[in-house]
């Protein structure tokens, strides 16, 4: 390993092998190292191995995160899917946080009140402006109504999940624990299982 070929020792070449593959050496240095590798069988084999290892490592796949992990993260962070009437998980309705909706509604309401007050200061109000203010008020009130309904729906769904679904799942889980052993095999029914000496004929 310490022999010299073409004025370069193999040790010096091997230290520069990876930088050579990375293209980090100067042109002159790269040429000298490459020339050494061409005529030195030891360094040539090291070079081939290094390139092969790198190719194998770079051929290892980047892995997809399983959907269940991402779903669990979304669930934990409060981005929970809503349930439709059939109880199926549905994401068709965009999930806008209630606080955001309430804030938007409040801003709209304040702007509307301010607008109406401004209008009140004006001695003459045209019919067109009255009509516009009426429409805006109706829109704001209907928006608030929608926000309230949506909040109520979400609270009901949450209560349903916590009180009904979780309780039922817990009950099923407990009943399965009674009927299955640790390995998932069915345990004999304590009522119908014959005791020692019974039914052994």
């Amino acid at each position: 390993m310490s022999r010299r070929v073409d004025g370069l020792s193999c040790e010096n070449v091997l230290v520069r092998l990876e930088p050579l593959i990375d293209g980090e050496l100067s042109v002159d240095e790269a040429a000298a190292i490459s020339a050494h590798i061409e005529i030195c069988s030891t360094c040539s084999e090291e070079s081939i191995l290094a390139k092969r290892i790198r190719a194998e490592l770079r051929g290892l796949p980047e892995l997809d995160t399983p959907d269940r992990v991402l779903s669990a993260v979304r669930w934990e962070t409060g981005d929970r899917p809503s349930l439709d009437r059939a109880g199926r998980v549905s994401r068709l309705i965009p999930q806008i946080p209630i606080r955001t909706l309430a804030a938007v509604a409040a801003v709209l309401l304040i702007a509307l009140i301010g607008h109406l007050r401004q209008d009140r200061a004006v001695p003459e109000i045209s019919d067109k402006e009255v009509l516009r203010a009426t429409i805006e008020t109706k829109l704001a009130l209907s928006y608030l109504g929608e926000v309230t309904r949506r909040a109520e729906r979400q609270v009901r769904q949450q209560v349903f999940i916590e009180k009904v679904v979780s309780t039922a799942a817990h009950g099923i889980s407990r009943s399965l624990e009674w009927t299955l052993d640790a390995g998932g095999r069915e345990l004999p029914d304590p009522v119908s299982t014959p005791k020692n000496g019974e039914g052994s004929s």
Partner: protein
Amino acid sequence: MRRLAFDTAVSLHERRVFTLAAYLLDDRQEAEDVTQEVLLRLWRRGHEVDPARVGAWLLRVTRNACIDLLRRRRAGAGLVLVDEKTEQGRRAPQTTPGPEALARASELGDRIRCALAALSEPIRSVVILREVQGLSYQEISDALEMPLSSVRVNLHRGRRRLREELKEVRDHVAAC
């Protein structure tokens, strides 16, 4: 952390997080657990993270979580997880199939993955981030909070060790 910023960060970086965990732990189930925990930590503490450095932060937290897990696992499995300076690592048996199942089943490929799993820290992290995940030296430096010179040194050591570990198959390689 705000929802939009969090969702964006997750969609940009979740694969890198899971891949790093999978190759560091060599156990898919544990990698899933670590990925979930890391992403939840981002949700809880994202406001403390510079938005421009979320990727590096995620990789650093992932690596730390994996190291914690490997430390706990080491007692039972005898894994390599000693500091590079002590040079007292013991090679662990491959107890659980992980990313190797997804990779090609060539003899050299198998040996490379075993050799990779046997590298000590932080060499293994540097090699995975550079050679498997294709990060730049600067990105690795940011992720591991390590000077660029140390990244180069660790990468050089890792590559050299992989070559040393695989010298016995050199004849096979040369014949290919």
